[in-house]
């Protein structure tokens, strides 16, 4: 189900490369702006991108981030071949984190990643298999403005 919609851009994510995450987020934001997408949506997309990429960086062992476009939605896709999420329900809770200590010492892994992605997107699909990897698809609808 990964390559249905037109691709805007795709970026490879290296494992444990914390600095690059902010860059992808602002690149995606600038791209959406150049397409004439409203700034509020650009910002939400940027936050979702950042959090999803951080998850890929910390847990997924790297992967691929892509920005896709449907008729009425932008889709941020994060794919990795990492360990998968064992307990998705728990992972969606604020403050729950399986990040290793050294990651937390750097100020990341506060257990807000997935909750934030859910908060800033309109639809969220997570396909995860333990030992195989995770594909996250976050939709933000372009029309039908939504209050945060």
């Amino acid at each position: 189900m990964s390559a249905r919609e037109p691709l805007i851009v795709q970026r490879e994510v290296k494992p444990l490369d914390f600095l690059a995450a902010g860059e992808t987020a602002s690149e995606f934001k600038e791209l959406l702006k150049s397409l004439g997408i409203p700034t509020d949506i650009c910002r939400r997309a940027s936050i979702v991108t950042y959090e999803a990429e951080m998850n890929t960086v910390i847990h997924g062992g790297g992967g691929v981030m892509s920005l896709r476009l449907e008729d009425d939605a932008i889709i941020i896709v994060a794919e990795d071949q990492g360990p998968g999420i064992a307990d998705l329900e728990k992972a969606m809770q604020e403050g729950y984190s399986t990040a290793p200590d050294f990651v937390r010492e750097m100020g990341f892994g506060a257990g807000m990643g997935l909750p934030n992605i859910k908060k800033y997107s309109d639809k969220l699909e997570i396909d995860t298999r333990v030992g195989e990897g995770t594909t996250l698809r976050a939709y933000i609808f372009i029309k039908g403005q939504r209050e945060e």
Partner: protein
Amino acid sequence: MSHGIKINKEACKGCVNCIKTCPTEAMRVIDGKVRIMEERCIGCGECLRSCRHRALSLKENDWDFLSSKRSLAVVVDPALCFQFPWRPYPDVLSQVLRNMGFDPIFKDAALAFDLTALAEARLLDGNSDKRGPMISTYCPAVVRLIQMKFQELIKNLSPVENPLEICIDLWRAKHVKHNVPAALVAPCPARVAMVEDPVGRDASSADYVISVTRMAREILTNSRSVEHLEDSARGSNSRWVRWASLGGETAHIKEFAEKPVRSLTVSGMRNVIDLFQELELGRLKGIDFIEARACNFGCIGGIANVESRFIAHQKLKMLASSAPTDEEKLLLDELYETGIWKLQEEIMPVEQAPLGMDLAKAMEKLEELHSVYAELPHLDCGTCGRPTCRVMAEDIVKGSGSIEDCIFRVRERIAELSEEIHVLSKKLIHTMTPEGENEDKRDM
């Protein structure tokens, strides 16, 4: 939008050094000369720093024209106080300017900066964590950067007018001198742009601009001795002068705030941009006030200063400012109630034109952009007159540029062509004999 920069076309060599330092990619070299895209320039002055040919300077008014005026009020950016061999107390400078025949707006400046700090302190006292930090609007380059690149932060900009504007308003109201023109002494292009094309108000109160460079030079040649002049903390209020250096505004606000202010001060374009990126991602929590300045060290780091920013920073330590007296506080309260400190107009985003009229068209253009970009060498050499290959691709799909502007592409084309010529030269017309072949064979 005005950018406050003057280009000296004779001096410009078209060397592309400046276009690569521009944080908003607002510069191009066309026909051998640099060009600034007004709609993208924030007036930060980074390009002036990188120009070795003195082709870029502040767009100021002519000195002879200004000094020939019968009367001229002068309001100075606090940075001017740090340009001289004497201590940075404003009283000395005020006296020097008066001796030169100007009407210095100094008492009202002191009042206006106090008022701005007070207004910001009150806003912060009433602020809730939900709104996020308040960002200072004192640096015009920072305001423009937010309008252009960080539109989601516009709501965080402090709705308080620039004290350099307020002081002229106060002075005019008090002295009924509506017909006396006022000149602002500016340390950077952004301050010039603030006068030419202000944000948050219809027109600036100042009529003219003089660069700190020019004013400092005139002062230094005109006033040899200032020893008899008062330069101590005993003189009038010098709190406002601290705004010239990073942290000065925050310190001033803290004197008026009732609640503790959790502040962050940041200077230099690179730092400011990084900070705003993190703010937009919602990563910075627990901050009430952000003092951001485009120049390192704050306004004393502005490109038009004469004194070194390091020495200016050291001089700040000579300045002992007293806290506001009860009498001053009463007057400030009164002024606060008049609302003269409020920004008159809402700050609006400056939108960049999208690639296409609608989403489908824009997507088409973006795909085209990606394929053009793929053909470029990705060296960002600047030889095409654009800061990066990416910007080049953008310009091409927007219709202002061709792939032949790229010397690497042209080189490849020449190689292809010469290859073709070579192949052609080997082709024979059927009446000729191929080299090395036997004539006898042909007869058979």
